């Protein structure tokens, strides 16, 4: 594995988006992962529609009652990948623009531009997460966002952050070998996370969180996806 890796430098990541006041982070995490996989499969970077997922994806987790994708009221990336398998794929952002509000489904299957051939969950092992990131493209991950409301820049490495309270869906796009942490007198390796709160949050819309001990549960729910087709 390389010590530093960043899919942004390789052209696999679309510009930072803004979900607005809508709990649709799960949709942005899902499209981000598929945008990367589609880029790896076709060499073309295409911005995909989150609104299609918000309006049309109501897939439920068969194991847990109430865990259904429900637009601005929340969802799960794995459910969304399942929806994309069932529906045939997703259209471009420009063909189904984001509104930040729940609406009726206006999915036009003839405009599908990217589809899922397979998705998998990655084990809770940072080396495996890094390997899957490098091999398969950006990864959809869940995270505890407790420290993100006040985050501005740098590598977030809080002393305490519950690993089991995952409440936000984001996209892992790379990692770095270390940013110097003066108070801890050592280099801290970190993950590079694409968020969906616009470019005026964090480091131009990105978040850095330290690697090594599943901080804020960032290693707990990781999904990788493979793209199938393109038009």
């Amino acid at each position, binding site marked *: 594995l390389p010590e530093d890796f960043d899919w942004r430098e390789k052209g696999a990541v679309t510009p930072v988006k803004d979900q607005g*006041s809508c709990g649709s982070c799960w949709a942005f995490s899902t499209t981000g992962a598929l945008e990367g996989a589609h880029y790896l499969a076709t060499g073309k970077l295409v911005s995909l529609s989150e609104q299609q997922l918000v309006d049309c994806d109501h897939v439920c987790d068969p194991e847990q009652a109430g865990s259904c994708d429900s637009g601005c009221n929340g969802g799960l990336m794995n459910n969304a990948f399942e929806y994309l398998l069932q529906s045939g794929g997703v259209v471009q952002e420009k063909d189904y623009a984001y509104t930040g509000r729940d609406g009726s489904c206006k999915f036009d299957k003839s405009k599908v531009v990217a589809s899922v051939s397979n998705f998998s*969950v990655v*084990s809770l092992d940072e080396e495996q997460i890094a390997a899957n990131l490098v091999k398969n493209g950006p990864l959809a991950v869940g995270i505890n966002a407790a420290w993100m409301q*006040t985050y501005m820049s740098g590598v977030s490495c809080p002393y305490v952050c519950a690993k089991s309270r995952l409440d936000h869906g984001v996209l892992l796009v790379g990692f770095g070998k270390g940013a110097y942490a*003066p108070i801890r007198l050592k280099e801290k390796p970190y993950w590079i996370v694409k968020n969906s709160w616009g470019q005026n949050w964090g480091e131009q819309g990105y978040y850095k969180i330290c690697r090594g001990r599943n901080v804020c549960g960032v290693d707990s729910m990781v999904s*990788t996806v493979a793209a199938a087709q393109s038009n």
Partner: protein
Amino acid sequence: TDDTNTDDFIIRQVVDNEEDHLLNAEHHFTSFKSKFSKSYSTKEEHDYRFGVFKSNLIKAKLHQKLDPTAEHGITKFSDLTASEFRRQFLGLKKRLRLPAHAQKAPILPTTN
């Protein structure tokens, strides 16, 4: 202990004179409203948001002490309570167990 890395464990005082920090709260709030184009429809709403903002200044300072390798401070969410922030900007359904029907990714080589 689940969330504590003993290698990194350090004890620091995390509470100090809140009054110092809030001294410029009004100035910070004015800058915040300007930077993020915030406006409030009534004086009551404005005053309430200012109260929330002051609480979040204290929260940011606490976060800074407990997360010293990052920079914490005023963000576009500084006029929101924690529950408003969760309700409006998060949205991952509570779930930690991996779904049984999902395939597990094959183990990849990580050397060389």
